[in-house]
């Protein structure tokens, strides 16, 4: 039984593909996805992703359903939920937007922000190292 408008289950399964839309060319290079693509937003303390796309066509379709005003889609970074969890991060479905989820459980320490940031960099590197890059 689903509690989400998209019909997806609340729990993000390990074998689900997650997509991060990249609108900035500094988020990837010839080698692959850079860790900056997955760094958490400091305001929300999470990283926004979308569920269920594993190729260019489905990824672009998902983008067309959830476009960001004024932004051009440059690339897609795709990773499995299992790879996110291996890095000690967690996933939480959150709709709307359609098929949306957040990568949670990043490190925050108001007394030593830089050390927490360094740890988040490492975690983002681990996720990015497993991500597939698709240029749009």
């Amino acid at each position, binding site marked *: 039984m689903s509690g989400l408008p998209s019909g997806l289950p609340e729990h993000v399964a390990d074998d689900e593909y997650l997509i991060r839309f990249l*609108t*900035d060319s500094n*988020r990837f290079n010839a080698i692959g996805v850079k*860790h*900056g693509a997955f760094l958490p937003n400091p305001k929300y303390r999470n990283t926004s992703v979308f569920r269920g796309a594993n190729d260019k066509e489905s990824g672009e379709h998902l983008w067309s359903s959830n476009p960001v005003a004024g932004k051009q889609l440059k690339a897609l970074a795709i990773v499995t939920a299992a790879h996110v969890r291996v890095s000690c991060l967690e996933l939480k479905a959150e709709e709307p937007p359609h098929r949306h989820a957040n990568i949670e459980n990043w490190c925050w320490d108001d007394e030593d922000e830089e*050390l927490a940031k*360094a740890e988040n*960099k490492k975690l983002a590197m681990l996720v990015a*190292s497993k991500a597939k890059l698709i240029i749009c």
Partner: protein
Amino acid sequence: MPEPLSTALMLGGFTALNAVARRNTAVSDEAVSLRQTVVGMVESGKQVESLHGECNRLVMDLWQLQDECNTIDWDGYDSLPLSPVAVQRTTQLLYQLPEGFTFPEIAAEPDGSVSLDWMLSRSRMVSISVGESDRLAYAWLDGTDKGHAVAKHDGITFPNRILGVIQSITGK
């Protein structure tokens, strides 16, 4: 011995720097001030042979990045504008990188910091986050080895602890 920023700029290729510095874009007073300094140096006849061409190119890239990321939500994910203080500190660090070291790629981070990235492969990389603080967050992956730490930047020299990590990852 690394050159101080002012000396490095004087020794640099100012024709291109001047072109960037003169651009009229919506950036902070600090950034405008730095650019005016460069313009002033050019106009006072201090243009000499470039000894820091690669570094100057990176500084131009940095300024361009600042122009691109100077508003909130520049990436569609509510990221903060690039901090002018972080840009100035990054400029210092680039000129303080000892000779022989590979120059990094630069990128903006969601909190307004600048990321200096040495990425050799998907599992071999080191990255420094340069923000408004004098404490630099950095992390690295080296195959199955990984780590993260913080190092203080005194504003004069590139932190030795980070140089050691860069050297071990890049081999230079």
